[in-house]
Every structure is written in structure tokens, then in C-alpha cells.
């Protein structure tokens, strides 16, 4: 039985490898390396992969592969490498939400992949092509595992080794149909792909509207982020979701499908108080550039209960906890410093001490980081300290989020 098993495995491995050989032989010429080159030193800054999608020489790749060229066109230029030669390329259009870009090359008449939306069965073998760590064109075999859940935007789960440098490369079926675009990895063969239908939509958009003028890319990116935000954050409804009890307070649980929540409870013997926390966050944001991302949302609720502290000491503890900012330091080139306002606020629930802070993005006008920190003021020896951080949101969204956050805390007498 053992021998038979080994034989079966080796035959299957042979089949797989022969498919990989076939796929590489047939489609490797449609995949190129993309390099972002520093203009002064003529040396590459970063690299990725792209693949031809028509005979006009247009490539599809990831937005994050070309983002530095759009951010600092005076310092960087985009090149593709074909047959050992570097040639200039130009970004025509981007879809920053799904991390896609279309790039023009001089390779007219070259055969490309024909893109159409496909929906393979879970378990289907896929082949991912790309340039991992600049080691040359590589083919990786993996399994298609369907659409990922709990994401801010759609991504496919690919169980195969995607590595840095393969970003923007195609993941295809043995017959050459492209299923997705390599975009990210969590290591241990946990890879993520952008569904190819978004690339199809971007090409269609490009056909109808024409290329985006280079000077307006920032505005286009900002507009895409804002439109996506209206869709995702506009639908947050704290009333519709299950509520979680934390002491005498009640807070909404998972506000949206794209949030992941975790909880903890700490009450050490030598502490004169106990704290129970619930923390929810998006796993990935929308990549804007090396410094910034947008669309990430996280919030936490910590319920403090005194086990021996009097009201004064307890108030001092809560004040201390409220002073800890959950947001990282500002990147001066990309953001302003935080500007804050504070007040006592009352809505349906208990009276709250609220701090509201915003910092603006310098390059993407109209996007802000938001921090809301609040503490309940109704009890002497129990309090809820809640924090919310949202990255890259509009002014309107920051108001909507702040309002729902302030109104989210209810109490049971």
C-alpha cells in the first residue's frame, strides 16, 4: 500500500511539473520585469512584474509597483526589461483600491493575455509568474482557494509562494486564462491575488476615458479613495449589529464584515483594578505610497473597574489611560501634525469626555487621519475608555465615524 501511495504521489508530481513546464514555456514571453529607476544614478529603486494584455503593448501590474513614479516623477522613472534591455514605460491608469495599474510600453504587436472574468472551482491549480527578489522569471504552482472574507476590498486566496518582486505578475490556469494578479503575501504559502475582473474593468475604463494625465494622478487617487469610502463607511450602522456587554455599558460588536475583532480580560492580583477590552480592526488598508495608506479603521473599548481604588485614584487612572494616543507619529513630509479639540459630550448614553484629533495628508488633499478618544464620566469606580483610529478618511467620513462612535456607547443602569 505504501509503495502504491508513493507511486501515485510521484505520478501526480510529474503531471503537475509537466503542466508548469508547459505553462512557463507558453506564457513566459508575455511577462516582463518592471523597474522603478532613480533618475540621477540610473539604479533601480524597486521592482515588480507586469504582463501584456493586448497587442498594443499595454501591461497590467500593481499600483504599488509604480506608485513611487507617480509620487516623485522628478526622481524616478518606470522601465520594463525585455530581452536584457531596459526601455521606458508610462503609467496610463490606476485603480488604487484594488492595487492595479495599466502601463504603456513600446512593444506593439506582441501577443498578450486575453482577459475575461473567470471563476474557477476551489482547489484548481494555478500558476503564478513573476520575478521574486530579482532572481529571474519564476513560475510558482499553487491552489486557488476562492474569495477572501472580511476584506475592505475583494481579494483571492492563493495557496502558493508569492514573494517580493512577483507583485503585478499573473496567476493563471494551465490553459492560459488569467485568474488574478499577484498582490500580497503573508508568508507560509499564503498568497493574495486581485480578481482579474477589476483589471478588465480598468482596461475598459481606459478605453472609454483615455489615459489619465500624469499631473492629475493624485486627484484621481484621492477621488477613488473617497468614492470607495462612501460605499464602505456610509453603510456602517451601529444599531443593526449585535451588542457586547462590558460591565454596565454596551458597545456594538463587529460594525462591518471587513473588521476583525479580538478580546482580552486582565485582572492581576496586585492591581487595584481590572480591565476588559475588545479591539476591532481592518487587516489591510489601501496602499497609497511608501508612507501612507487609507481606509484602515480600528477601535477599542476598555472597561475599567476599580477593585480598591477610590474615586480620585480611579479618575487619575482613567485620565492617564486616555492620554495614550493610539496613532503613530506623523511623517512630516506626508502629513501635518495632529490638531485636536476636546469637550464633554452627551448623547443617548452617559456623559463623555471626548478628544477628537485630525491630521491632513499633504499630497492627497481632502484625506485625513482621525483619532477619537473618549471616557465615560457617569460613575466613580467604573469607566469605559474607547479609542478609534481611521486612516485616510474624508472630512465628511470623519464626522460620520466620530458621531457613530460617540453614540455607540450605551449603558444599563
Amino acid at each position, binding site marked *: 500500500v505504501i509503495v502504491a501511495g508513493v507511486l501515485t504521489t510521484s505520478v501526480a508530481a510529474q503531471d503537475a511539473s509537466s503542466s508548469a513546464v508547459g505553462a512557463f514555456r507558453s506564457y513566459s514571453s508575455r511577462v516582463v520585469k518592471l523597474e522603478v529607476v532613480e533618475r540621477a544614478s540610473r539604479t533601480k529603486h524597486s521592482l515588480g512584474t507586469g504582463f501584456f494584455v493586448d497587442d498594443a503593448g499595454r501591461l497590467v501590474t500593481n499600483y504599488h509597483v509604480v506608485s513611487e513614479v507617480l509620487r516623485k516623477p522628478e526622481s524616478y522613472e518606470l522601465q520594463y526589461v525585455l530581452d536584457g534591455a531596459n526601455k521606458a514605460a508610462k503609467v496610463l491608469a490606476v485603480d488604487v483600491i484594488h492595487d492595479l495599474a495599466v502601463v504603456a510600453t513600446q512593444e506593439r504587436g506582441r501577443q498578450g493575455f486575453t482577459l475575461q472574468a473567470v471563476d474557477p472551482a476551489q482547489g484548481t491549480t494555478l500558476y503564478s509568474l513573476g520575478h521574486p527578489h530579482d532572481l529571474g522569471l519564476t513560475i510558482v504552482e499553487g491552489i486557488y482557494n476562492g474569495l477572501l472574507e472580511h476584506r475592505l476590498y475583494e481579494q483571492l486566496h492563493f495557496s502558493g509562494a508569492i514573494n517580493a518582486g512577483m507583485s503585478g505578475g499573473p496567476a493563471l490556469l494551465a490553459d492560459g486564462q488569467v485568474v488574478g494578479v499577484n498582490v500580497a503575501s503573508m508568508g507560509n504559502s499564503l498568497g493574495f491575488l486581485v480578481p482579474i475582473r477589476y483589471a478588465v474593468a480598468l482596461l475598459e475604463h481606459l478605453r472609454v476615458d483615455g489615459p489619465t494625465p500624469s499631473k492629475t494622478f493624485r486627484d484621481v487617487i484621492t477621488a477613488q479613495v473617497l468614492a470607495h469610502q462612501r460605499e464602505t463607511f456610509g453603510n456602517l450602522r451601529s444599531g443593526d449589529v449585535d451588542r457586547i456587554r462590558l460591565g454596565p455599558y454596551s458597545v456594538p460588536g463587529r460594525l462591518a464584515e471587513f473588521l476583525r475583532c479580538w478580546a482580552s480580560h486582565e485582572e492581576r492580583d*496586585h492591581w487595584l483594578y481590572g480591565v476588559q477590552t475588545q479591539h476591532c480592526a481592518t487587516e489591510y488598508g489601501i496602499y497609497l505610497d511608501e508612507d501612507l495608506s487609507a481606509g484602515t479603521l480600528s477601535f477599542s473599548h476598555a472597561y475599567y473597574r476599580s477593585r480598591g481604588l477610590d474615586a480620585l485614584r480611579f479618575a487619575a487612572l482613567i485620565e492617564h489611560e486616555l492620554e495614550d494616543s493610539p496613532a503613530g507619529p506623523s511623517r512630516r513630509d506626508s502629513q501635518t501634525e495632529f490638531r485636536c479639540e476636546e469637550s464633554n459630550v452627551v448623547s443617548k448614553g452617559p*456623559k463623555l469626555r471626548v478628544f477628537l484629533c485630525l491630521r491632513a495628508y499633504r499630497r492627497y488633499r481632502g484625506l485625513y487621519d482621525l483619532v477619537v478618544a473618549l471616557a465615560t464620566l457617569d460613575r466613580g469606580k467604573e469607566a469605559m475608555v474607547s479609542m478609534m483610529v481611521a486612516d485616510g478618511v474624508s472630512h465628511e467620513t470623519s464626522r460620520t465615524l466620530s458621531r457613530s462612535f*460617540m453614540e455607540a456607547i450605551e449603558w444599563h443602569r
Partner: protein
Amino acid sequence: MAPLVFVEVLGRHDRVSHRQAIEVLPCSVGRAYDNDVILDDPFVQAHHACIDRDDDGALTWSDLVSGTRTRIDAKVGASCAIGRTRVRLRTPGFVLEQTSVEPFQDTRFGRLVGSRSMRGLGMAMGVLCVAATMRWDSYGSDVSDWVGPALVMIVVLGLWSSTWALAGRLRSHHGTFGMHFALALAAVGPYVVVDGFVVMVQAIRPSVVVYETLSFLLPTSVFFAEVVGHALIIGAPTLRRAVVIGAGASSALLAGVLVAHFAFEAAFSPGLEIDARLVPLPASVIVAESPDAFLAATERIRARLDADLDPQ
């Protein structure tokens, strides 16, 4: 030969910096070394004055520069100015009055703290403050949780005392220093008592929450306020405005005392404004606005951020 008169050269606060017995009259006073009394004062003439007796036997002071002649009552110890120096004449029969006040021994913390009772009171306050800080500034029952705040408190006490001593020295004005110290004690004493009372009230009425925008809750902060406040006022002559921020019943008292204290300072520092901001406290009386009203703040923030983005 017995001295006829004593010439005393006076320093700051009329203390005698030099005393010379005169056995022969007339006696000349001036900058030149052929005088009987030589003064190290560039504003004094080479031969400036002459001390003598008149026909009645009274002492006279003749100013050789102005040509005036004055009779001196040496028993009263009258003094006269010469250049930038003050000179006093005394007769040998003069006796300094005795005082019942013991001379202070420890000058490091000034005259007032030098007295035994004040030192005792100061130490008691210090111990009380350390104990209060240990109790209020830590959130655990572990001894290690208390060591940090207690050390900080001790350092603060040291800083506070030395700042006071320095301030007193700088001003060389013992009355002012004593008043300062009395005011500081007045600030801390009732504060500790009232805070204890507030704790008791809150134990009975747990719905009352003391909430502070700055940690003026703790005795430590009183000392910090004292030290920083005085350092600013003494060290920054251009300071125009001192703001005391606090909230709550206890802080109201503290802020009130501090305001009174700084107002006292302001009397010595013309142009200084004192501004106290208090937030009313128990939850039932906390002034709270609606979320909509508060969210108008985002407009103000946005305006400030726009200014940050496009500085004009």
C-alpha cells in the same frame, strides 16, 4: 589714647562693612591714601570730607566739595552719603540694643524655615505629601508601584525647597520670602484637607467623578505649580500671562489659592496677568454639549490644518 569717634562704612541693608576708630581730630575722609579714613569708591573725591568738632564740642561733617558743614548727632548714629558710600559716625558710649530673637542657625532654607517649629511643620507637610502621593499616584497595591512616585515626590520637595531658598536669596528680602512660604503652606494645607474630604464624599456618593484636564489633583502638582510658576516669574521677566488650569472642588480651591498667590507675585511683576480656568465637576453638573455641537469642532480643526498645509 582713647578713641574719640568711630567711622562705620555701611554695606547693603545698612550692615557695617568696615569700622575704624578715630583717636585724633580733625580727621580727613577721601579716596587718597594720605587720608585718615580711605574709601574705595571711585565716586568719592581724593580729599572729600573732614570730621571735626565745632566750638561747642559737637561733631561736624564738612563736605570739602560743596563747602557745607553739618553737625552730627553721633548718639543717634546719623549717616551721610559720600559718593556711593554711606558713612555713619558713632561715639564710644554707644551700645547696640539686645534682641530676644535667637539667631537662626540653618540659613540654607532661609530664616523662616530655620526656626524649629517651621522646620517641623515643613517636614510634617513633606511626609504628608509623600504619603498622599503614594496613595493617589499609583494604581496598584504592589510596593514597587509606589517607589517611583515617592522618589519623584522627594525630588520635587527638594527642588521646591531649594527654589524657594534661591528665590529668597535672589530677592534678599526676608519679609517677602516669609510671605511666600506662608502662602505656599496655605495652599497645601487646606488642599490636602479638602482633598481628603472629597475622597470621603466620593466614597459615599460614587456617582461623583472628579475629572481633571491637567493633573492638579495631586499634592505633587501643587509643588510643581509652585516651582514652575516661580521659576517662570523670576526667570522670565517678559512673561505676560500665567494660566492656572484645574477642575473640581479640590482644584477650585487649589486654583483659588494659587491665583491669590500668583496675584501676590503679580504685584511685584507689573504687567503680569493671572488667568484661572476651572471646569465644574460632579457628573451631574458637568456641562456637556451634543455630539452635533461638538462635531462643529472638526470645522475648526480643518481650518487649522488648512493653515498648516498652506502656511502664508
